């Protein structure tokens, strides 16, 4: 640079005086290598009439004839800084050096450990700039990733506020281990990012958030997703499922900037019309029809049966029908038809949510700072569900002197979530309840609660339930507080040696309070379950009053890492980068649970529980404490060698050690490594000639990722407990119910990645293609043991599986004029997963997945119904037959086939994982207007849905969808759905349907699941700064965004949303309209 500046200054002094036509020629070189001629660089004249120009030839040479008015030449080449060369009088030959433009090509990729020049990047990574323009108004970081990155698939299984998004990078690589990617915030791996299984998320009161939910999306600058082993090997065992690196905003050099942003979100109420439920009239007719039929299941349930029982006309109706009933009874039943409780209105609501963020940032040469405060509240469309988040972020970097730079940041947040308690069977879940509650049921009788005695969950008890009472008298509150602080320092020892260190402390804490008042279904149920027999009869041991269960959870971890980096260029063309380092991590988790009974939330008093015996007291622990500590030590190194920015070879290795209890030190480490290469073909002369190619490079990597199961030990490990065997003598015991297994090996995944980057036509089209193959062996799973060993299960290396797939990302600049710009981005991921080996338990009647994907769905093939309305099954030969013939049922409904033969009755129907997933995003800019349209899609999935009704166990006390009206009956011989079965008609089949998990396994209940969602439609307007300056505002933009406004997919009738179709408990993904305001001062 200095040299150019010098020449430049010199040129200014000696101004040309002559004005005549002359010829100039020269060579354009790459300024960094100083030897490399640039082919196709544009050389044009500045000054004079018109512009003359040409492009350099294969030797980088040019020759132009210019008029004397031309004072200088402008030389441009893509990826290099444009340079103006003053023409000197009398000098004909010029040697022009262009410096690479780091803004474009020297772009760095943050991997968490290193910042890698994209030109040396051998790995498969994808970055996402997090801004409202790109991702829209997202509520959390995981939502920002939806449909943005090729090869990263997302499923939002629940639309509840704060519910996590299930993220999979390049399919599933582990079966029993974690399948979640590793999250890294500004270089620090985060703890507590695993999301619970979808089964656990079904209850509304299972309010759960990962530590990701605490990060304010508006603090984020960029998210980088590391996909292949070349990128992740450096993270060791935790990175087997990919890594998501979050980089937060920092202050930029310049005057202080205050940014204020606000979003007001309107979410309209859920519309349960899609559920296609029976109205009061239809429900009463159904109940009447069933009462005159032979279908006897729960014959006393439902309002009609109750009215008949009260008037003593049950038998009269069964024999004589409607006309035999007294007119008073007829009137009472008909009155039901007129009541249509609007469950939508009772359970759901429209909400307006708010979000505010203020940040202050700025900096100078020596220091930069960024601080922000954010508040976000989100009420659920389910009444009674509230959620809010408060964030505080402080960041600063300081250059203490020329060689030492330090930085410190603090991320703090508090989150509160509130809902009411739900039943363990999930039936008091409002979304689920909305499907079951009778349309003729009225919640209130004046001011008094009417109790729903029909909706009773699994057990047929007479506990009173009223959803309004439950909402008023129970609560479930969780308060999360999280603090993350990072301190880093960088010491430049000399021009090529750098030492960096980083210390991060993460502290997460939550308090979960579950309260049920005396007058609540939850409490009544708790009491019923605590009923024991005493000499004077049976009664509950719990005292009168409510209950209060509190869980306090603390998790803290600290990570320290230090790295020595060496980067040096030799002989202008050899780049060598080496890095070695160590990382130490320790985490500690503590949870304390306490339970109080006879609780009064006004006086905060409780009553002691009088346990009749020590053995019963052991069933009701009032206090529990758990504590867990883990430590990890790792060593790692990476190295890369680059020749002329054309060829790069890289490698990395990491040793992870952890505290495996009782295991010798030498077994605690497994080396994970990767090797990779990059060939930037665009730099080759023969490609450089093709002027339309701006970038062409090929990547390849191979690596080993691994995982160990820390729950299985080679030793017999026990846990302490205290028990009483004989009265009055409590003793210490060690419970050792986990089988030791000295043969357990590491789970290993071999990873191959081949990639191509191409950008053409002045970068109008950029194209990235990746193909990967991941082969996981020695996957850890549970195996059934001979029970004579003393244990039933142990963890073994049990399966192997492969994932292969393609990832395509295409970004195009379709139109670009002065005022209008249209860009499109399409990303696609195709993944096929195959289980190569799986040990199937000998007793299993459900098939193993060997040769099928891990998410394989198996079902019984059916061929409609027989004359009596019973399903017909299709056997391997394609013949239709009854269940009795298909399963070879004995008279008790048990199959006389062996387990292996029963496995063979199933057919493979598809997989629950998407074959293709991705996003399609368009952005239009016209003058100050911006329009963004983002779509996401998942294709090629299957989902097993819950059957509309059970042919043997349909409970007439519950509402259901209209499929039941189309059941096969004598009056409806063309009905599509099975008839309601009578136990005496075909007893063996009746038992099979009622007691075995058969009906839901029919192929009828496996649906195609493909969907395309208009995730974000956003219109924004940026005000002209000149209009704002008089108010001291430097920037103002407003936006209107619709999120999830539209979804289309394969048939999802009777369900709210295709994405949550498999889970009747899930709140649907809410539609919302967001007004946004963004101001800079």
């Amino acid at each position, binding site marked *: 640079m200095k040299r150019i500046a010098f020449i430049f200054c010199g040129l200014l002094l000696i101004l040309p005086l002559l004005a005549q036509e002359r010829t100039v020629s020269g060579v354009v070189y790459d300024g960094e290598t100083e030897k490399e001629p640039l082919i196709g660089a544009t050389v044009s004249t500045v000054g004079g009439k018109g512009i003359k120009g040409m492009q350099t030839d294969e030797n980088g040479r040019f020759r132009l004839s210019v008029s004397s008015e031309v004072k200088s030449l402008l030389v441009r080449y893509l990826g290099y800084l444009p340079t103006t060369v003053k023409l000197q009088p009398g000098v004909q030959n010029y040697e022009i050096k262009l410096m690479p433009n780091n803004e474009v090509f020297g772009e760095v990729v943050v991997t968490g450990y290193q910042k890698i020049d994209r030109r040396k990047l051998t790995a498969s990574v994808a970055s996402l700039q997090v801004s409202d323009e790109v991702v829209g108004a997202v509520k959390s970081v995981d939502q920002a990733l939806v449909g943005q990155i090729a090869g990263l698939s997302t499923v939002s299984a629940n639309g509840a506020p704060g519910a996590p998004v299930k993220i999979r990078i390049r399919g599933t690589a582990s079966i029993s281990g974690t399948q979640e990617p590793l999250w890294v915030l500004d270089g620090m791996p985060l703890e507590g990012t695993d999301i619970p299984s979808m089964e656990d998320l079904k209850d509304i009161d299972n309010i759960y958030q990962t530590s990701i939910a605490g990060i304010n999306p508006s603090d984020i600058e960029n998210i980088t997703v590391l996909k292949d082993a070349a990128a992740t090997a450096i993270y060791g065992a935790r990175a087997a499922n990919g890594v998501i690196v979050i980089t937060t905003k920092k202050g930029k050099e310049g005057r202080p900037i205050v940014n204020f942003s606000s979003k007001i979100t309107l979410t309209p109420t859920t519309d349960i019309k899609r559920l296609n439920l029976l109205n009061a009239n239809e429900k009463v007719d159904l109940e009447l029809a069933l009462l005159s039929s032979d279908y006897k299941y729960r014959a006393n349930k439902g309002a009609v049966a109750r009215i008949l029982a009260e008037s003593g006309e049950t038998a009269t109706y069964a024999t004589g029908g409607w006309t035999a009933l007294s007119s008073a009874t007829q009137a009472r039943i008909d009155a039901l038809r007129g009541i249509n409780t609007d469950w939508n209105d009772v359970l759901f609501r429209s909400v307006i949510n708010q979000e505010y963020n203020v940040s202050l940032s700025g900096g100078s040469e020596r220091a930069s700072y960024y601080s922000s405060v954010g508040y976000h509240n989100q009420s659920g469309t389910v009444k009674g569900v509230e959620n809010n988040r408060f964030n505080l972020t402080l960041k600063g970097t300081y250059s203490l002197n020329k060689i030492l730079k330090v930085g410190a940041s603090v991320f703090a947040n508090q989150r509160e979530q509130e809902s009411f308690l739900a039943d363990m069977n999930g039936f008091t879940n409002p979304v689920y309840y909305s499907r079951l509650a009778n349309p003729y049921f009225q919640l209130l009788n004046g001011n008094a609660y009417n109790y729903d005695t029909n909706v009773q969950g699994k057990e047929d008890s007479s506990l009173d339930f009223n959803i309004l009472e439950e909402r008023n008298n129970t609560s479930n509150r969780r308060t999360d507080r999280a603090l993350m602080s990072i301190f880093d320092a960088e010491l430049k020892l000399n021009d090529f040696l750098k030492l960096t260190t980083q210390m991060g402390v993460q502290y997460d804490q939550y308090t979960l309070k579950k309260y049920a008042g005396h007058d609540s279904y939850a409490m009544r149920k708790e009491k019923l379950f605590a009923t024991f027999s005493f000499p004077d009869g049976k009664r509950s041991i719990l005292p009168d009053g409510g209950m209060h269960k509190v869980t306090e959870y603390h998790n803290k971890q600290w990570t320290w890492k230090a790295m020595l980096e060496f980067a040096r260029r030799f002989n202008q063309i050899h780049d060598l980068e080496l890095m070695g380092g160590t990382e130490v991590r320790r985490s500690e988790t503590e949870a304390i649970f306490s339970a109080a009974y006879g609780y009064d939330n006004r006086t905060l008093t409780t009553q002691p529980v009088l346990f009749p015996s020590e053995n019963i007291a052991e069933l009701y622990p009032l206090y529990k404490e758990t504590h867990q500590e883990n430590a990890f030590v790792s060593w790692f190194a990476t190295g890369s060698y680059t020749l002329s920015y054309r060829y790069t070879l890289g490698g990395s290795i990491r040793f992870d050690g952890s505290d495996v209890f009782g295991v010798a030190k030498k077994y605690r480490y497994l080396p994970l490594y990767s090797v990779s290469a990059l060939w930037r073909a665009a730099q080759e002369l023969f490609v450089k000639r093709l002027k339309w190619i701006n970038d062409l490079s090929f990547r390849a990597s191979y690596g080993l990722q691994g995982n160990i199961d820390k729950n299985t030990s080679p030793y017999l490990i026990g846990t302490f407990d205290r028990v009483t065997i004989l009265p009055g003598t409590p003793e210490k015991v*060690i419970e050792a119910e986990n089988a030791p297994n000295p043969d357990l090996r590491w789970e290993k995944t071999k990873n191959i990645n081949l990639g191509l980057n191409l950008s053409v036509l002045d970068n109008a089209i950029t194209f990235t293609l990746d193909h990967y193959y991941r082969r996981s062996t020695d996957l850890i799973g549970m195996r059934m043991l*001979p029970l004579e060993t003393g244990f039933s299960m142990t963890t073994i290396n049990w399966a192997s599986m492969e994932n292969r797939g393609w990832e395509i990302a295409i970004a195009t600049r379709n139109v670009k004029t002065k005022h209008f710009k249209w860009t499109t981005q399409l990303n696609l991921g195709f993944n096929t997963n195959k289980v190569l080996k799986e040990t199937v338990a000998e007793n299993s009647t459900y098939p193993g997945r060997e040769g099928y994907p891990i998410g394989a769905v198996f079902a019984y093939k059916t061929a409609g119904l027989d004359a009596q309305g019973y399903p017909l099954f299709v056997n391997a030969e394609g013949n239709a037959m009854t269940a009795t013939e298909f399963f070879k049922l004995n008279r008790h409904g048990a199959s006389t086939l062996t387990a292996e033969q029963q496995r063979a009755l199933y057919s493979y129907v598809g997989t629950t994982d998407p074959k293709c997933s991705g996003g399609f995003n368009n952005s239009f800019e016209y003058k100050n207007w911006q329009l963004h349209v983002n779509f996401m899609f998942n294709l090629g999935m299957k989902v097993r849905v819950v059957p509309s009704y059970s042919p043997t166990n349909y409970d007439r006390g519950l509402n259901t969808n209209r499929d039941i009206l189309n059941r096969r009956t004598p009056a409806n011989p063309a009905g599509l759905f099975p008839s309601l079965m009578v136990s005496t008609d075909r007893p063996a089949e009746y038992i099979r349907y009622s007691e075995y998990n058969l009906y839901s396994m029919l192929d009828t209940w496996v649906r195609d699941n493909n969907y395309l969602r208009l995730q974000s439609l956003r219109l924004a307007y940026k005000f002209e700064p000149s209009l704002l300056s008089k108010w001291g505002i430097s920037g103002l933009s407003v936006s209107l965004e619709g999120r999830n406004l539209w979804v289309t997919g394969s048939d999802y009738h009777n369900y709210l949303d295709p994405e949550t179709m498999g889970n009747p408990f899930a709140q649907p993904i809410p539609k919302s309209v967001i007004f946004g305001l963004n101001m800079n001062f």
Partner: protein
Amino acid sequence: MNTKYIMIVAILVIGLLSGCDDFLDITPTGKVIAKTGEEYRALLTYEYKNFPEDRGLATLRSDEMTLDKASTNAEDYDSFFDIWSWNDDAPSATTVSFGWRRYYHVIYIANYIITHQADITQATAAEISQLVGEAHMMRAYVHFLLVNLYATPYTHCDPGTTRGIPVQLKADINQLPRSSSVEKVYEQVLADIETARAHLNVKLWPKGYNYRFSTVAADALLARVLLHMGRWDAAQAAAEAVLKERSTLENMNLGNSVLPCHYTSVESIVALEQVMTHVYKNIGIPSKEILSLYRSGDMRKNKYYRQVTSSRSELRKGGSNEYSCSFRTAEFYLTAAEAAARLGRFEAAFNHLFPLIDHRYNTTAAAQYKTELRGMNQEQLLVEILAERARELAFEGFRWFDLRRTSQPSLRKTYGENTYQLSPADARYTLRFPSEAVEANPGLELWPLK
């Protein structure tokens, strides 16, 4: 300047790295790999605590209990009815199983202690020896229970060629066990008792700890095993050895006597199994068959049962850990009497039987009963001794096993209009292996072994 920084950093790095080796040595809170004597004891205590209560469940198989619509609730019906009605072929899916895995877990821990006895620290040689002795007793008692639940009685088969149960002598999860012959199982049980005898050094444990095995318990188990093998002479000798140490009986003629199966009773030798847990106790009511066995003047009828109506009585025994009882003195009076009677040793039989009668019947009834007994022949006497055994040890987990080893009579039960029958020497006197065990180890039923 630079050198100074490098030095500081180098010192820091070296300092931190050298601390790393210990850094990974975390002992998880609440978790333990047993090392000390106290910890090995805690391992065994867990097995005592979780010892299966199948002898209580077996009362449903015998004629002791009646299930009826009035006293059996729906949940218990689902769980136990098919056991009670001997519906072994197609039990409903909700039927509970007799234990299997839990027994073998007890054996695993016993084997673990036996294998690792040399590694136990912080314990005296006597403590270790006692612990190892108890482990052998555990192994012997569990194998004995299993072979009596799941294999043909020793006295009704050719033990050498009849399939028994797998004998587990190693703490190793990677084996594929196969069944041994009944003979082999008993041989191992006897060998374990003998080894236990050599290791045990506590004669009897104080109240509160008397669930543990002791030297008297070793004799007691030996007597019970020999009785089940039909080795009368040895059984009599073993029972007499127990009585030498422990002969006092609760006298029901005195107002202050506790139930003999109470853990504080003078008769208690091992107070391990609750037998009639609070669940089993509530399944049904004592059967007419068992109640009709009691003669007039038998104090036990009111001690063991509470009459609710003229036709219904409730059981007083059991229902909590106070009534834990696996071995108690009265059993050995009866064992000695039975063995003697079988050998034609009338006087010895009377000598063992009469003290029990004196403590259980009122004076007049006792005198009358004794006179009747003196007039009986061997066969009649045996019938009476077995009846007395049924009366004394009712609902303590003996009846089913006694029926099995003796005459295997026909049994009848009624529930509503349905009757259920077990024919004489019915195959159902022996339980099938639990299906989950066969599923997990299909080779279990292989017999004879090749």
